């Protein structure tokens, strides 16, 4: 058996490409949902909402202090356990088997990225000067209005570089989705390479795909950041 078979690598590369949408789907959906959830968590902490802010601190600390892989397993085994309790208590007939793996993955990655994004959003919101809020109040806006119209657009500009990092981290993080039985790029690489005992070929292919995706995203975010900052006056 030769050390590296180009034939195998090239002929099975399309298999890997077929799994790219799954990876992107998980990353994009959990990024967006995580941003909304993260914003709520950040607002809870900034406005020091009594019970919720304490809970938010605990939540963020737990998610940031434990590996993604463990979180996936906790969810995978936790949901059936929770359903069992609910079924016994209320006489429902929920079944975790009917939930598709992709939903598990989306939930886990949303919960995970919300914690990281809440920290970014909190930092960005704190970076906006308080006078902006006062100015918004002074022209008669409500708190919600001024947050949505004045504060968030500015905070977004501050947050973009960090959010981009989180998104790239998420793309790489989806390589763990095999834990909840999602067939993503990594899982395909594993399955196909086990067929022919050709590990290098498939994993190099997977590495190449991840690299291209992340590289393209890095460039994309750099352009986006430039566009968002075009209204800022230059320091002369």
């Amino acid at each position, binding site marked *: 058996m030769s*050390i*590296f078979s180009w034939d195998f690598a090239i002929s099975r590369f399309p298999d890997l490409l077929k799994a790219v949408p799954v990876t992107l789907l998980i990353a994009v959906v959990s990024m967006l949902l995580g941003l909304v959830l993260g914003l709520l968590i950040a607002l809870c902490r900034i406005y020091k909402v009594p019970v919720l802010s304490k809970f938010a601190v605990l939540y963020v*600390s*737990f998610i*940031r*202090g*434990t*590996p*993604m*892989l*463990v*979180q996936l*397993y*906790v969810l995978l*085994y*936790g949901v*059936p*356990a929770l359903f069992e309790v609910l079924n016994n208590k209320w006489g429902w007939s929920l079944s975790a088997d009917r939930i598709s793996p992709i939903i598990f993955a989306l939930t886990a990655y949303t919960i995970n990225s919300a914690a990281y994004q809440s920290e970014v959003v909190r930092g960005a919101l704190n970076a906006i000067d308080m006078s902006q809020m006062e100015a918004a109040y002074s022209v008669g806006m409500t708190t919600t209005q001024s947050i949505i119209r004045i504060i968030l657009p500015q905070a977004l500009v501050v947050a973009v570089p960090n959010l981009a990092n989180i998104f*790239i981290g998420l793309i*790489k*993080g989806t*390589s*763990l989705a095999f834990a909840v039985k999602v067939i993503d790029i*990594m899982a395909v690489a594993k399955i196909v390479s086990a067929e022919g005992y050709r*590990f*290098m070929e498939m*994993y*190099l292919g*997977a*590495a190449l795909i*991840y*690299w291209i*995706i*992340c*590289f393209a995203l*890095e460039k994309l975010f750099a352009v986006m950041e430039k566009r968002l900052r075009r209204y800022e006056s230059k320091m002369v």
Partner: protein
Amino acid sequence: MNGSTIDNLMEIFVKISQKLPITLTIMVLSLFCGLGLGLVIAIIRIRKRPVSYAIATFYLSIMRCTPALVQLFLIFFGLPHLLMLFNIDINSWNKVTFVVIAFSLHMAASLSEVIRSAYLTVGNSQLEAAYSVGMSYFQAIKKIILPQAFAIALPNLGNDCIMLLKDTSLAFTIGIVDIMGEVRIIVGNNYGINEFQVYMVISLIYWVISIAIEKGVSYLDKRLNRSHVSISKC
């Protein structure tokens, strides 16, 4: 929850904790090797010699744009093949070695950026001042730049440590029995205990170590920066 469940959980906790040294060994070894390699990469990137700079940047790009899991598999399956070309047989090596190599390479990339930004923050004027009192480049780095750069880099170093700790949970995928591997065995053997509870136990262990690292770093940060005078006190 009745008494026997708590006993069971305690038993599992003890069992998992016994594998903690392996996790910590992987972590500490990778951290030190990664710091060494990261320092070299950072110096290459700071000095900007054309060819070595391009190589270092390319290396960073690969390491930062591919998942740690892929890197681990590539090292585990690829390195023996690669070295076989030079007639070096490493199939007998301990699996922990492969993990340490993979995570060192992985950490070196992010650590080199931490070191580089810390160096740039300290700034060239410090280097010039050191030259002006007659120090050589390496003396200046050792006595003037590094102590200051370390204080600046510390928070990021702490973050990377925690990242590394969490990444070690991937080591079980190549068959190492660290704390995560032990959990897989417990779940596989099925002691009649809820898998959910087992994973909660291990997340608590990771969480506690993470918090300990965080507290340690912030304590060190306070000590190192106590001589630093804020601009507000000028």
